[in-house]
């Protein structure tokens, strides 16, 4: 059955190819005026008579509908068939196929069917790679240059989260995850001290599952030139996404101990079922003259989630129970069945009008104005499925598990987007150019503000009517972002430009801490370009962002400042250059530095620095010979100022600061060449990347005794990744039509990550002793290092 399923796509692909071949079979020998003349030129100078004849031929071929060569007469085929063997070792090696499938056994590697007669404006191509693999891809492209073009593309993209996860959950109905009643009852009735043994027993016999989402995308595009100036285009996109991925749910309880407060942690990780559809249709038209053009686009987009909610059994509870609240017995997460609201269906209608006009004195004005209307009206799920919760403020005669208890049955969510973008560019005299740019992006959320009487808190086990005194209410975010910039470019000499620019960016927000911010940026850039031999640029920008008023609200610490709204000073510098020693040999490099300083009088992110550089060496020598080498280093660092809460909230002794530093080094080198006169072809590449994340934490003061126990700074190990890749393709051309090739891929990958290394489906033993994780059940969805060898052999047929 499995083999049959796997063969199905291959069968259809083969059928399509056979069909294409039969359609594109040669009908007549190729006639190619240009090539013929090219050949004749080898024999010497053409006579005037011959030239006249050739010119006549040219004129004939220039007449539409009188092509001497047809689409079928110059069809070329290439197929690659072979076999492949893969050996992957490692504890959890799923990363090797995280976003691809490396198939074993018989392999239809790729094909290409192209009909491209030289003196006909028509063309046709069908290209495919990896038929029947999860990452297969096809492109069908045909048309008539200047008249119409049809493109259809299909691609698959898997995302393997993990192979070898363990799950107690089963599902017979989409959107419903169940656990055998016996497990729920056993775990509910087991004393806390004996819980680990019981859970381990069930987990060890749970089936292994793979968590993978597959994405399939079909795109079709049609462009038609109705006249020399007027064209229409149609686009259709269909995306399917299905499979399963990890989804967590959990809560916590704070516990006082002699050594300080600690936590009981409760979590359940679920294999969320995914079944998405996205359909998008665009229709547009463009009318363009030499000096002006106008374009109109309409796009309709519909997202459909076929599993709108996920109900799931709680492995630790067979019957519902209400928790006693924050001051009572620790009994949170006490529902027997929980419910998730998954991504709701939504749709959007978008209109875009754009165009440009060339003004006198070689100035140009280009504008685009767009409106989008996003709507979402999925039915709400109930507050909870925990019938033991005693809720207040509900309409008479309703229960907390009933959707009738909700103030509204659905959101009637409505967001209107308005965008406008205007560019004016003009020469200013002989040596100056000016660019003016204005842009607005308005996201106006017209969704109702709904006041709820409360919500099911603490793991769906307690009715909470406010959070820090704030009622339970949604706050639809509305924002408008505006940017205006002016730039003057001084052409000092033919190769040298010096530009100055000034930019203002303003944000207006509703329902955020800052209602308005203004940011002013001044920058300059020096660029040099001497033919194609040497080019480079250096730029520097300084920005100053200032919030008008920062209102921290009641939900966050009053001395916290969020980095996306607070005061920020930014320095940004970049260097880029390219130098070609000869037409074949080039060297290029980049260097960038960006520093963001946030208001260090407050807590939160206080500094962010990003720097990096790269060097590229490229040699493109003889025909089909390329040699390259590159190195890059990037470094990111951020500094946090933080504070831990105590029984008397936020004593400054409980401050802790953390630096995080990320480095990634990568090296790549490769050669593509013929080793023996168009016979032996070599394609060899090597890549290496090393990533390292280092954390360092300090307590500037001495944490108070009544703090949470881990308010103190503890060392974290580095998180490291090491990646190597050797990719070899060696082929020998036996005849003009047949080649035999060998492919080899070697990929060792190492991952040291403290967040995953000690993980297991039931990881309580990995937690520190004072942290109670007896009701912490995961899927163990992760990957670790691997060593992978893939070797394949293939035959290539071409005609």
């Amino acid at each position, binding site marked *: 059955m499995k083999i049959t399923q796997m063969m199905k796509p291959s069968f259809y692909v083969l059928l399509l190819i056979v069909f294409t071949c039969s359609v594109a079979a040669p009908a007549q020998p190729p006639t190619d005026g*240009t090539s013929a003349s090219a050949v004749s030129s080898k024999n010497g100078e053409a006579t005037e008579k011959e*030239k006249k004849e050739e010119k006549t031929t040219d004129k004939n071929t220039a007449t*539409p509908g009188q092509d001497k060569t047809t689409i079928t007469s110059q069809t070329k085929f290439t197929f690659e068939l072979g076999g492949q063997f893969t050996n992957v070792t490692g504890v959890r090696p799923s990363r090797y196929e995280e976003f691809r499938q490396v198939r074993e056994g018989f392999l239809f590697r*790729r094909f290409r069917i192209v009909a491209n007669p030289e003196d006909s404006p028509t063309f046709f191509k069908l290209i495919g790679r990896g038929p029947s693999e999860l990452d297969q891809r096809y492109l069908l492209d045909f048309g008539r240059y200047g008249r119409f073009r049809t493109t259809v593309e299909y691609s698959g993209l898997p995302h393997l989260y993990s192979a070898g996860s363990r799950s107690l959950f089963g599902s017979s109905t989409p959107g419903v995850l169940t656990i055998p009643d016996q497990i729920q009852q056993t775990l509910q009735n087991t004393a806390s001290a004996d819980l680990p043994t019981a859970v381990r027993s069930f987990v060890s016999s749970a089936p292994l599952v793979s968590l993978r989402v597959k994405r399939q995308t079909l795109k079709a595009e049609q462009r038609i030139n109705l006249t020399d100036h007027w064209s229409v285009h149609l686009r259709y996109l269909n995306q399917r996404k299905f499979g399963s991925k990890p989804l967590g749910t959990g809560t916590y309880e704070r516990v006082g101990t002699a050594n300080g407060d600690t*936590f009981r942690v409760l979590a359940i990780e679920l294999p969320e079922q995914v079944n998405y559809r996205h359909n998008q249709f665009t229709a547009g038209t463009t009318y363009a003259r030499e000096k002006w053009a106008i374009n109109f686009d309409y796009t309709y987009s519909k997202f459909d*989630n076929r599993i709108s909610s996920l109900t799931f059994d709680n492995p630790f509870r067979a019957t519902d129970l209400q928790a006693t609240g924050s001051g009572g017995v620790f009994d949170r997460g006490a529902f027997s069945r929980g419910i998730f609201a998954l991504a709701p269906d939504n749709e959007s209608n978008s209109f875009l009008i754009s165009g440009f006009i060339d003004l006198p004195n070689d100035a140009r004005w280009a504008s685009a104005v767009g409106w989008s209307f996003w709507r979402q009206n999925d039915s709400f799920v109930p507050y909870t499925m925990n019938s033991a919760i005693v809720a207040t403020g509900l309409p008479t005669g309703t229960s907390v598990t009933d959707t009738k208890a909700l103030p509204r049955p659905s959101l009637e969510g409505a967001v209107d987007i308005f965008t406008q973008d205007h560019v004016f560019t003009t020469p200013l005299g002989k040596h100056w150019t000016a660019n003016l740019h204005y842009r607005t992006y308005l996201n106006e959320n017209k969704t109702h503000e709904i006041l709820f009487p409360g919500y099911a808190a603490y793991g769906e086990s307690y009715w909470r009517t406010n959070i820090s005194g704030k009622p339970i209410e949604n706050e639809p975010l509305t924002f408008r972002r505006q*940017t205006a910039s002016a730039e003057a470019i001084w052409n000092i000499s033919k190769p040298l430009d010096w530009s100055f620019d000034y930019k203002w960016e303003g944000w207006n927000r509703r329902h955020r801490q800052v209602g308005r911010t203004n940011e002013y940026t001044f920058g300059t850039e020096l660029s040099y370009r001497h033919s194609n031999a040497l080019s480079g640029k250096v730029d520097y920008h300084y920005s100053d962002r200032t919030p008008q008023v920062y209102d921290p609200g009641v939900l966050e*610490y009053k001395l916290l400042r969020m980095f*996306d709204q607070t005061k920020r000073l930014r320095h940004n510098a970049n260097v880029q250059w390219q130098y070609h020693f000869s037409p074949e040999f080039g060297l290029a490099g980049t260097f960038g530095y960006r520093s963001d300083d946030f208001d260090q009088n407050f807590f939160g992110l206080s500094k962010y620095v990003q720097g990096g550089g790269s060097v590229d060496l490229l040699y493109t020598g003889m025909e089909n010979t390329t040699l390259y080498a590159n190195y890059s280093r990037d470094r990111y660092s951020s500094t946090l100022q933080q504070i831990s809460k105590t029984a008397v909230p936020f004593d400054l002794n409980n401050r802790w600061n953390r630096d995080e530093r990320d480095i990634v080094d990568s090296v790549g080198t490769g050669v593509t060449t013929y080793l023996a006169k168009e016979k032996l072809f070599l394609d060899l590449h090597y890549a290496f990347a090393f990533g390292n994340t280092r954390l360092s934490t300090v307590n500037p003061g001495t944490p108070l005794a009544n703090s949470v126990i881990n308010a103190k700074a503890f060392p974290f190990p580095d998180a490291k990744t090491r990646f190597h890749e050797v990719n070899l393709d060696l082929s020998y051309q036996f005849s003009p039509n047949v080649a035999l090739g060998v492919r080899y891929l070697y990929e060792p990958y190492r991952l040291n990550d403290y967040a995953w290394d000690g993980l297991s489906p039931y990881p309580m033993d990995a937690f520190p002793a004072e942290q109670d994780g007896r009701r912490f059940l995961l899927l163990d969805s992760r990957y670790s290092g691997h060593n992978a060898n893939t070797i394949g052999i293939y035959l290539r047929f071409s005609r």
Partner: protein
Amino acid sequence: MRILKLVFVIFFCATAAAPFISSKLAANAKKEIVPLPAQDPSQFVGNSSCAECHAEQVARLAPTAHHKAKADKASASAQSCESCHGGAKVHLEFHLTAQKLIKEGKDAEAEALQNDETKAKNASMIAFDKLTATQINASCMQCHSQMKEHAVWRGNKHEKAKLSCLDCHSMHHSPAAPTADSKLFATAQAEGKLLKRRTEADTCFQCHGDVRKAQFQRSTHLFRNENREHQLSCSSCHEAHGSIGEKLMRTGSINETCYQCHTEKRGPFLYEHSPVRESCANCHKSHGSNNTALLNARAPMLCQQCHIQGRHQTVAGYSNSAFTMNRSCSTCHAAVHGSNHPSGINLQR
């Protein structure tokens, strides 16, 4: 700050007003920008004549759109080679005369003719390696100005960097051209675009070398199959010729670009996470990251950049804590992109 505002307003107004008060200067500039000779049909000789000496170049051009489109066109663009390189009548006569002289044994006269700078200059064709980027682009725009993306080429970052069409495209030597050796199997994204490099990503990496490393990072959007072919291309998100969005995004904002594939995050939701709605880039590095899920920083540190309040997330913690391991904060706050659950105010449902 007021001074900065004042400078901005003065600068903006001065720039806007300048073209209207200096039209004479601007007129001079116009001459600089379009120096290409006008297309004169009487000077055209046809491709077959070009092929007599430049057989390889003509053969390489023949299967491409730049040759094939001529069959449907009239006048200038029907000439293929000469559409870009100018009419070759004088060029042809000059070289035929020189060859004739050599054939007749009049080497000295032939040499004298070839050394006549004026005649040689008049006979020269437009050579693109001698043109400025503006000149090259003006030549291409003779036919390509109708594409709506090109409307905003002027004034965009690539134009400002003095890039010409030929920095990314190659008319005669594209490894992704239909003429290319099929062994190289140009990727689908590069097909038909006559790119200078085998793939679209390699073309962009010529200048954006710093992005290349993203394909090897722990999480990446530059997915590759075992043949080193990319599943997504740069043009999936960016429009290199110009766009109305920032960073040459294909849509009006970063988020709308992300929603093209991640439509489930578009909402609107009952409870939204405001920074998520404003920009995905607040938390994600779009090309690649050392962290899972393209995150800017490791969780819980990423969340701690903006959150302190609460009785659990404020701790420095240790590496084996339940709050640090697995998916950290999102183990419980799984609905960080928005929740449509009436009890989802803390983004847990």
